[in-house]
């Protein structure tokens, strides 16, 4: 069973797989350009001292996003994919 959630709710240290980015607008396009595309693995590295933003690792680089953006990224846990 895979569990679907949004990227902002993934606990620190966990690794997830992107399912889709919500909304077909400019922000969704930008997140796509930043590499948040279906099937891409994202790891939650650490949160800022005040809780937001958060650093993620994907495609071999580190990206900070605020909750308002990471909340649009739907992800699934990686343990259910049989890989």
């Amino acid at each position, binding site marked *: 069973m895979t569990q679907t959630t949004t990227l902002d709710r993934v606990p620190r240290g966990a690794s997830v797989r992107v399912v889709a980015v919500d909304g077909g607008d400019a922000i969704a396009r930008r997140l796509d350009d930043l*590499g948040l595309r279906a099937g891409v693995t994202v790891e939650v590295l650490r949160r800022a001292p005040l809780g937001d*933003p958060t650093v993620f690792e994907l495609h071999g680089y580190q990206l900070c996003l605020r909750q308002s953006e990471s909340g649009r990224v739907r992800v699934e846990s990686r343990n259910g994919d049989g890989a």
Partner: protein
Amino acid sequence: MSATALDPGATVFGLLGSPNAGKTTLFNALTGLRARVGNYPGVTVERREARLDLGGGEATLIDLPGTYGLEPISADEAVVGDVLEGRIEGAPQPEALIVVADACSLSRTLPFIGESLLLGRPVCVVLTMLDELAARGGVIDLPRLEAALGVPVVGVVGHRGRGLDALRHLLSDPAEWSAPAVLPPSDRAERAGWAASIAETVIDQAPARHALTERIDRIVLHPLWGSLLFAFVMITFFQLIFSAAGPAMDWIDGAIGGLGEVARATLPAGWMADLVADGLIAGVGSVVIFLPQIVILFSLLYLLEDVGYMARAAFVIDRVMGRIGLEGRSFVALLSSYACAVPGIMATRTIPSPRDRLVTILVAPLMTCSARLPVYALLISAFVPERAVLGPIGLQGLVLLGLYVGGAAAALGVAALFKKTLVPGDGLPFAMELPTYRWPTLRVWATQVYESAWAFLRRAGTIILLASLLLWVLLTFPRVEAPPDMDAQAAASYALERSIAGRLGHAIEPAIAPLGFDWKIGVGLVSSLAAREILVATLAQIYAAEQSDEEAGGASLREALRSDLRPDGTPVFDPPTVGALLVFFVFALQCTSTIAIIKRETNSWRWPAFAFGYLFVLAYVASFATHRVIGALA
């Protein structure tokens, strides 16, 4: 492929890539110090172009603004597309494209590379950071990548100059570049699939996490240690700009003064000698005096940037700045503005979002700069009683603190307002890369500092020089002979009252009377447009007071201000007027150098005019209100 005939060695190249891909480092490595830096019309996006010597002829290299994709999501990003389509007047249209990609995050950038292949122009791909890729154990098969894309691929280490010869050779004849047999899909989702399949073929081993970066970040981004380090770095940064520049500035001040003396001694007495000594030499001095702060600021700023700390600092403070609609990097610019708004506004160059950058530029003059301190010191020491309020905390200190806090609060409030009204964002997402830590390269670092200092001298320096010459004319002409029985101080006061500035002071008196200001303060306001602290010297001249101790507001000037009476016998500097004058200086943009640097950084007179206007209105209204409130209380 493109039907354009490409002249070998004289091609216009466009450098395309994401913000952290090493594009600018590559640009500098290829062109040396020959970049022409400017702005694209209407936006605060920097425009960099340079001649490129390829041995056989002169080509042009355009450093396009960093972007993650070719579909713009804001007016500022649309610049890239406009340049590519040749829609910007005076900007040459790139005939061939160099797409720069960070080798470590190649899989992210492949769709962007695909997008650029669809532009129908010769394309070559430059993979940067090959050293980091190797250090992280990553392996990319370059020949296979070249075959998969169908265009030439060159690997470089830009800051070490490796791979540049091969790239130069490639650039010398773009007509020979291979073109893809089949173009990538134009549909975004299909192109993602195309990119994923290429990534699978060419990336033999994805790079592991950079071990050293991970170890450093465990401390630097730790909730407690990271916050303490942030505070330490920022305090040190501010302290160095604020105080380390002091001796150099004093030295320049002394040298300019000495030079003026020499000119006076050499030239026959008269207005020619005055022009050279007080106009020209002092004018040049008013430009050069900024150099120590600017050089120190950019040395530190680029050091923090090149090492990789700037993005981390922005990450730590982002939540706070996010509240007012700005982002972490604005913090550094606003902090620098506590020393001086000129370097502070120049520091906004590190803010990636042009909207955030513009708003930060517009509110930076509200931060209490060091030039306000002599004005505050004079007025507070003359008129605020030295009374203990709470233990060791005195009333004078509290008033000074209030002025500092008032300025900062106004800056944050206005920034939040402007973000909502002036540049209502279509919700540009905040997305920032945290680069891998790396040792700075002396050459790259020195180039950046040199370019910034030179840009200041060339672009803002001329405006500052002209403005200080103009103010000298206003304060000097028409030349009126004082009655022979007057002493030197009284004669200077007599001449100043009859100068254009003196007449202006009289002329604006009705307008400033509601604030409690008379014509003498009016002259002070006119002359302090050159720099705020000039108010003290001007008042000293008008009141014919000794200027020996003007920095601290000499005792004789304080006495003269206190004893000046209106025709009805009440003091000119009564509490409402002093309060109004202090508040006026919290807000008003009394600084031609700041106006000049805003012009230089936004490349238009619109924004400096707007900043001057809104700050003047704010100053006038706040001053008026202060005058009324204190008047009612007293």
